[in-house]
């Protein structure tokens, strides 16, 4: 068995885990982060893309509101490439109570969340597709954030400070010596090898899976309730700023412009298993109905993809165990030295992507307090390395600008997302064992209207041509990518996306006969 020795093992490669490993590394500890799959493959990539202004919580959860407002400004400074400063609005629908707006403004003022009421005319001028029957509008500083970029840039910063990031390493066992955690045993899914990581401390940042991890250390009954929410991406940006409904947090109360699409979210249903998150038809209908309130004829726009994510909610005895909507969005740190007489293990649950950095700071503080050490947290001061060395926030026309520069010299593999061959081969060189979906999350391969219709064969061909994958793996990668795209397509298949699917079927089945290729590799 391969062995490693570090101070701290962080389990979970979502936003919490990378925030924690970055903070730990910046405070001078040797650290390794492990995840059973790729970074940000779970909840951190399966949300609506909102960078909270805090407005959503000014009435229901003032503490979260204040934190969101502060962290929004910090993240925009330290991870600009992941963030688009779209701005946002809360609008009062025709049947919503206008008096809620007064509570909203009072809460915003009390919690330092910037918010200004604007006229309905000004709101409609800013977003012409918004329902003209709205009665009030409040402007806030919402943004949109690419969870994958956020996580990868934070991971890059951690690695600059010496942290190791081991993806596709599934934790199989947590060992203890006496009353202290001593090692984490992982199985490397890509090589089939087991790895023993000796350590003094384990930070369990496994999100909706944190209960399963805690149990491996003998700490039972850690209840993290996965709150499942669905999101639907609509083709094009129907709005260019975030549009929220001016009501108490509810299902389908927000539309977020993210990259070339806009996303409506979300539902909140207790999920028994975070590995099995359905996208029920009735919830899709619910999203479309909710969209109609914010944007008339929302249903007639083209839905291109849907997904489901599992919020890691802390079980709170004050609310019903089935009511995940009203469970705290705040974070919970469980110290197992008090709860289970096991030193060197903290379990983290709850929280929001917007406050991931602050949450990491609290967790690492808690770790240091148990260790009896104290180092300053510097994660808010120092920017993370940016992929193209840019220091400006994301703009939706960035890639168009880049392709204007290299259009004669390079090919565009994915026209929907303006992805060049060079961008693809560079990322492939960084992640040669990645699946096309792993590369997709960082490159947006196949995430536009054609949903991989034209680019997936090209990506497969290039990966095979440059020698990174053999033919069995190439065929397996193509099949898996198409299968995974379909998972998010069929629940929202209607309108023009049916027509697109028919064209894609003519390409893959009709012209290329992909289903009759010889077998591909089963594990890719």
């Amino acid at each position, binding site marked *: 068995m391969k062995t490693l020795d570090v101070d701290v093992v962080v389990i979970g490669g979502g936003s919490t885990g990378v925030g924690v490993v970055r903070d730990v590394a910046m405070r001078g500890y040797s650290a390794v982060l492990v995840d059973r799959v790729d970074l940000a493959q779970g909840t951190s990539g399966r949300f609506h893309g909102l960078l909270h202004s805090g407005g959503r919580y000014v009435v229901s959860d003032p503490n979260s509101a204040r934190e969101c407002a502060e962290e929004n400004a910090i993240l925009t400074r330290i991870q600009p490439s992941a963030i688009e400063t779209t701005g946002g609005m809360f609008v009062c629908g025709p049947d919503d109570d206008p008096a809620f707006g007064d509570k909203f403004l009072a809460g915003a003022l009390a919690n330092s969340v910037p918010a200004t009421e604007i006229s309905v005319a000004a709101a409609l001028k800013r977003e012409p597709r918004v329902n003209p029957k709205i009665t009030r509008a409040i402007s806030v500083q919402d943004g949109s954030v690419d969870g994958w970029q956020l996580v990868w840039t934070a991971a890059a910063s951690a690695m600059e400070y010496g942290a190791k990031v081991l993806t596709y390493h599934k934790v199989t066992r947590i060992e203890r010596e006496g009353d202290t955690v001593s090692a984490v045993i992982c199985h490397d899914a890509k090589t089939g090898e087991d790895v023993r990581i000796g350590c003094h401390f384990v930070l369990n940042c496994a999100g909706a899976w944190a209960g399963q991890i805690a149990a491996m250390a003998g700490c039972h009954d850690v209840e993290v309730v996965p709150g499942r929410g669905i999101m639907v991406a609509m083709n094009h940006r129907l709005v260019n700023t975030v549009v929220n409904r001016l009501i108490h947090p509810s299902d389908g109360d927000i539309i977020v412009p993210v990259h070339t699409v806009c996303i409506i979210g979300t539902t909140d249903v207790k999920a028994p298993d975070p590995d099995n998150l359905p996208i029920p038809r009735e919830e899709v*209908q619910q999203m*479309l109905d909710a969209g109609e309130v914010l944007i008339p004829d929302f*249903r*007639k726009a083209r*839905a291109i993809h849907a997904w489901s994510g599992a919020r890691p909610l802390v079980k709170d005895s004050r609310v019903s165990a089935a009511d995940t909507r009203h469970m705290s969005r705040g974070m919970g740190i469980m110290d197992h030295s008090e709860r289970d007489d096991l030193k060197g293990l903290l379990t983290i649950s709850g929280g929001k992507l917007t406050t991931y950095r602050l949450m990491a700071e609290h967790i690492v503080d808690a770790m240091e307090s148990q260790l009896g050490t104290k180092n300053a947290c510097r994660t808010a001061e120092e920017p993370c390395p940016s992929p193209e060395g840019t220091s400006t926030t994301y703009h939706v026309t960035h890639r168009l600008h880049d392709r204007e520069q290299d*259009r*004669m*010299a*390079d*090919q*565009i*593999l994915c026209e929907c997302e303006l992805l060049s*061959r060079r961008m693809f081969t560079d990322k492939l060189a960084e992640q040669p064992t990645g699946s096309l979906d792993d590369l997709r999350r960082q490159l947006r391969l196949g995430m536009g209207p054609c949903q991989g*219709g*034209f680019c997936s*064969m*090209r990506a*497969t*061909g*290039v990966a*095979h*041509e440059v020698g990174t994958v*053999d*033919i069995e793996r*190439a*065929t397996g990668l*193509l099949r898996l990518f*198409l*299968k995974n795209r*379909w*998972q998010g*397509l*069929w629940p929202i*298949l*209607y*309108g023009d996306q*049916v*027509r697109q*699917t*028919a*064209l*894609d*079927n*003519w*390409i*893959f*089945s*009709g*012209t*290329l*006969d*992909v*289903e*009759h*290729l*010889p077998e591909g590799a089963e594990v890719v």
Partner: protein
Amino acid sequence: MTDVVVIGSGLAGLVAATKLALGGKSVTLISKGLGGLQLSQGTIDVLGYAPGRVADPIAAAASMPAPHPYSVLSSDAVRAGVTYAAELLGDRLVGDPSHNVLLPTAVGALRPTCLVPPEMAAGIVTGGIQYALVGFRQLKDFYPQLCAANLARQTAPDGGPIYARAISLDLPAVADMADSSALAYARAMDDPSYRQKLASLLKPQLAEHEVVGMPALVGYRDRTAHRHLEELLGHPVFEIPLPPPGVPGMRLNEALVAEAKKAGVRFVSGAKAVGLVAEGDRVVSVGQATAGRIRQYTADAFVYAPGGFESGALTLDSYGTVTDTVFGLPLHGLGQDLITADAPADQALFRVGVGVDKDMRVVDTTGHAPYSNLYAAGGILAGAIRWTEKSGEGIALASAVTAADSILKGA
């Protein structure tokens, strides 16, 4: 007023219109735009899988169960349809309607089809064949290594081995451009001097007995391009269809449009057909949504060949309702789980369509024909998943020729 109005300019519409015009009818063809043929792979598929690989598509078509269009059409009708297209297109198609062949696809699968353009014929797989697959660095829709490696993993139907290797050429279609479409290459290949340049790069790399596979771009309008390239190389050359727009499909489309025009078919393109006017059980006219108004086209008979979901003739709305967007005809194949988590190509939704009797007259779900003079053909017909079966052209041709014959016979 014409004798017949045909709606749709895909394979079914073009062939039905031409047959009717050659049979002495005055024909107006109305269409929203170019038909789907230009997006196709350019072969005549009759039946490739049912669900196992089919050797004789005409024989296999006869045993397709209801509600497949072939269960309504007789095998004679299938043969007549395919034969008619072969006669109409002359030397643009080769092959035997009762015998499928296997051709390499761009990713290296072996795809069954029936009639093929002569530009593809040298690629028909036989045991021991030695493929040299040629790609261009500036063409992103064909990866010769991928194609070769998958082909080399398979055996020919006779059990013999398949040899395949890849050659990459650094030859742009347009000077200094790294990203050119197959159509740009096909236009470049219309120039004999470009073919000479290609041959001078390629010929030294070829070995004896190799059959040269190229992406389908060996000339767009110059029909001598393929033969010329074979002469220059001294090797047989075949084309491999790429994702759309497909050059072989465009060639077939242009040839069929020319035949239809030669036969006297009048084309009115650029606006979608919308709605029909009926008197009793007869359709009197159909509308076309031209600028500012709906223009009515009256006729004695109507052939409805608008395609399926891919053309926009059928649509599914966000509430799950499937509609014929042109005439609102009763649809067959509804009333079950139309979309499931199963493979995208096999969804029941794509079997939904219009039902017909043996004369190709449109019928409702009880088998009753609401109109005595409305016929349907091609992709709008219910009961088949054409891309999986590799049956699109066969269904289109058999139904178009049957519908035209019904009208010509005064059925």
